[in-house]
């Protein structure tokens, strides 16, 4: 009896969970954890972007950093210079030769103390190989992922998009979902920029011949202008101040009423910027964004306050975008949009409407079919089926499983198959009745014998759904969740609930009724 009550209670509760989804206006009467089922972007309209984080570029930069650290550790004057040769980057670290055999262990000791436990240091004769440990790499990548997500979020927030969802997917991807966005081109443009800003001095000693032949002297790079890629600027590779030290940036207008970006450094950035402008009056410095020169103004006088103004022939929108990018920070690794799916809000609404009608008609067909086949037992099956449908919706809502278009179709399919779980015991009962068993006995026997069958069939299905979830992406995963929930509710409703209802119906019927109308 207690078990029966529990079953009925769970069924009622499961159905209750579906109410906010079916009647959206009722949501306010429910506690906050009973929510309507969230709709996928294919149903409510919006843009979805899949971004790939290019961690190779970041690892390369880390390798370059390692090179610098190794070099400065070995030529440290205070601790004594350790002479070496042939220092160069390999695919995953640096390699060098120590000149003097006797210094080998000293070199290793010093590198270990400077570089810490993030690196493996191996020696082979005079050759030292220094690579980041696998663990350190993993940390760098996961750190880059979380920072990238944070920065993408800041950039998108700055554009005022409502309820964006930004999450990592599969280790190196970021999935961005923007409900209500019809045309994400501008967002794509903003996300696609690394926005790494650096300030360099311009090397005025470079001759025009050198520029023309593209042979940069060591320590100097030729970088193109942002708005005129043909024209190159020779800048020293050394970074004087970097965009990381920016505290704030805003779009505004200069005295000629041209759009510019005003920037403000933090304390240490301001100090470095002041030093730079004091020591290099009447020289040029270049403001470089992602390898392109925004502008290369001449320093007229020292700038002590840490405030600057970047001009670069911006449009107002360009200035605003740059300000947003600088405020949100540079991405640790370049991002590429590798997949875009946008559904206009109108189409989304149409899809819901037709999807609803189609599914409703499909379910109606099944209900009528069962009624025709099994009469009063069919009615029981129908009620169980409707409870099942409501429970799928309710439980999906509880887990926050997103409902997508394939998900709707999946629910209908689940219901079609749930019929099987009803037909199986009914057929058994019919067989028993035919062979002369009393109705009550037949019902008991029918349900008991078919339980294993139903269980095995549904569990193999569950395996299938779990695999879909594990290997599928995007809409397929949502669909797999719906399918798994469907298997659970089908087992519950068909094995437990329908038994209770049949028992209840049979109660009070005399045992003499050896025949039940089933066809």
């Amino acid at each position: 009896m207690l078990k029966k009550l529990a079953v009925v209670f769970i069924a009622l509760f499961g159905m209750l969970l579906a109410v906010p989804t079916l009647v959206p206006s009722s949501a306010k009467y429910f506690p906050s954890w009973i929510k309507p089922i969230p709709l996928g972007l294919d149903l409510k309209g919006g843009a979805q972007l899949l971004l790939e984080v290019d961690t190779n570029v970041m690892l390369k930069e880390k390798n370059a950093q390692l090179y610098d650290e190794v070099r400065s550790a070995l030529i440290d004057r205070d601790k004594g210079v350790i002479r070496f040769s042939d220092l160069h980057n390999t695919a995953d670290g640096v390699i060098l030769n120590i000149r003097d055999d006797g210094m080998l262990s000293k070199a290793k000791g010093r590198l270990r103390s400077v570089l810490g436990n993030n690196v493996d240091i191996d020696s082979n004769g005079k050759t030292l190989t220094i690579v980041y440990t696998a663990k350190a790499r993993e940390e760098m990548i996961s750190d880059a992922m979380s920072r990238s997500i944070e920065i993408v979020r800041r950039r998108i927030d700055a554009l005022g998009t409502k309820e964006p969802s930004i999450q990592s997917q599969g280790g190196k991807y970021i999935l961005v979902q923007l409900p209500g966005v019809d045309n994400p081109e501008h967002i794509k443009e903003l996300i696609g920029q690394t926005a790494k800003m650096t300030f360099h001095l311009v090397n005025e000693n470079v001759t025009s011949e050198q520029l023309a032949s593209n042979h940069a002297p060591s320590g100097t790079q030729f970088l193109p202008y942002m708005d005129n890629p043909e024209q190159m600027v020779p800048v020293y590779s050394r970074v004087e101040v970097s965009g990381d030290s920016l505290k704030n940036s805003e779009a505004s207008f200069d005295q000629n009423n041209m759009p510019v970006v005003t920037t403000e450094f933090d304390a240490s950035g301001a100090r470095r910027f002041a030093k730079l402008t004091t020591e290099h009056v009447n020289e040029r410095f270049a403001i470089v964004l992602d390898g392109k020169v925004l502008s290369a103004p001449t320093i007229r006088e020292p700038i002590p306050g840490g405030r600057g103004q970047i001009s670069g022939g911006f449009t107002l929108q360009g200035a605003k975008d740059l300000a947003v990018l600088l405020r949100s920070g540079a991405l640790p690794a370049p991002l590429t949009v590798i997949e875009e799916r946008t559904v206009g809000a109108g189409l989304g609404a149409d899809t819901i409407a037709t999807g609803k009608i189609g599914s409703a008609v499909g379910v109606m067909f099944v209900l009528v079919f069962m009624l025709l086949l099994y009469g009063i037992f069919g009615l029981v099956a129908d009620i169980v089926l409707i409870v099942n449908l409501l429970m799928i919706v309710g439980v999906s809502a509880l887990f926050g499983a997103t409902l997508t278009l394939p998900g709707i179709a999946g629910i209908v399919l689940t219901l079609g198959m749930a019929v099987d779980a009803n037909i199986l015991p009914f057929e058994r009962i019919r067989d028993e009745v035919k062979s002369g068993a009393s109705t009550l006995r037949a019902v008991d026997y029918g349900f008991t014998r078919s339980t294993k069958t139903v269980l095995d069939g549904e569990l193999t299905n569950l395996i299938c759904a779990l695999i879909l979830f594990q290997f599928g992406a995007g809409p397929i995963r949502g669909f797999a969740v719906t399918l798994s929930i469907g298997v659970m509710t089908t087992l519950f409703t068909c094995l437990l609930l329908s038994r209770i209802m049949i028992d209840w119906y049979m109660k009070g019927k005399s045992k003499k009724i050896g025949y039940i109308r089933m066809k």
Partner: protein
Amino acid sequence: MKLHFMKYRKLSYWVSGICVLLSILSICFKGFNYGIDFSGGIAMEITPTTPEYTVDKMRSDLEAFKPELQSVDNKAVLLRVGLPKGSTDEQLNARVAEIKNILGNRVEYSQVQVVGPKIGGELIRGGILAILVSFVLMSVYIWIQYRGGYAVGSFVSLVLDLILMFGFFSIAGLEFNQTAIAVILMGVGYSINDKVVNYDRIDENIKKYHKMPMTDLIDLSVNEMLYRTIMTSVSTILAMVGIYVFGGQMLQEFAIAMTFSIIMGTLTSIYISNVILYHFNLRETDY
């Protein structure tokens, strides 16, 4: 009424063999109508804001991109642009921006899908892996619950199902995309359920009738389950008919493919997966 499936099992094998051959030939020579999910590229559903902007004008505007344009319901236009070999994600994104730039305000975008060159390969690998892993796991489950012979039987018929479903997608020219993978896996799920239910009865009858010859026993079991097998698939197909007729264009291909896989799963359950058990000695306790 009793149907003799075992008597005609050679015919079943021949028919299946021919269908498998046709499927493989179609897959090899005709191939699949890959959606951009797999091939990469751009697919847009756009609606001109003015009636003057016709498909022909669009075609000439976008000539440089060699687009495929197709008008739907006299209103919306499907625009597809393939991905030239060796192009990068950046180039693809630049193309999208350029196309949107050219079309400008003259169209509204109902749907835009852009899939880069790398992601398609990952989807194919993921899909195939998913299918294979699910086959193995489901067979293992059957092995544990029943006996090795059943596991082998279901595995063989699942592979048959799979080849026929891929063949169907190829022959019918249905778009092969992420949803197609889902449909195939769902078809597999439906089919395995069918097979398990039938095997369950065979297993029960083996325990019940110790002396009955295997051919008669399988025939008996299949006949006992025949009504249920057919009714379940009719009911599921009815649900798909509802979706096909009223569910709108986007769900139609789904409903067609699903209906095919239900019919096929039912047929292979009746004619193959049960019949094939004859070749395994299921009466041996240890297999």
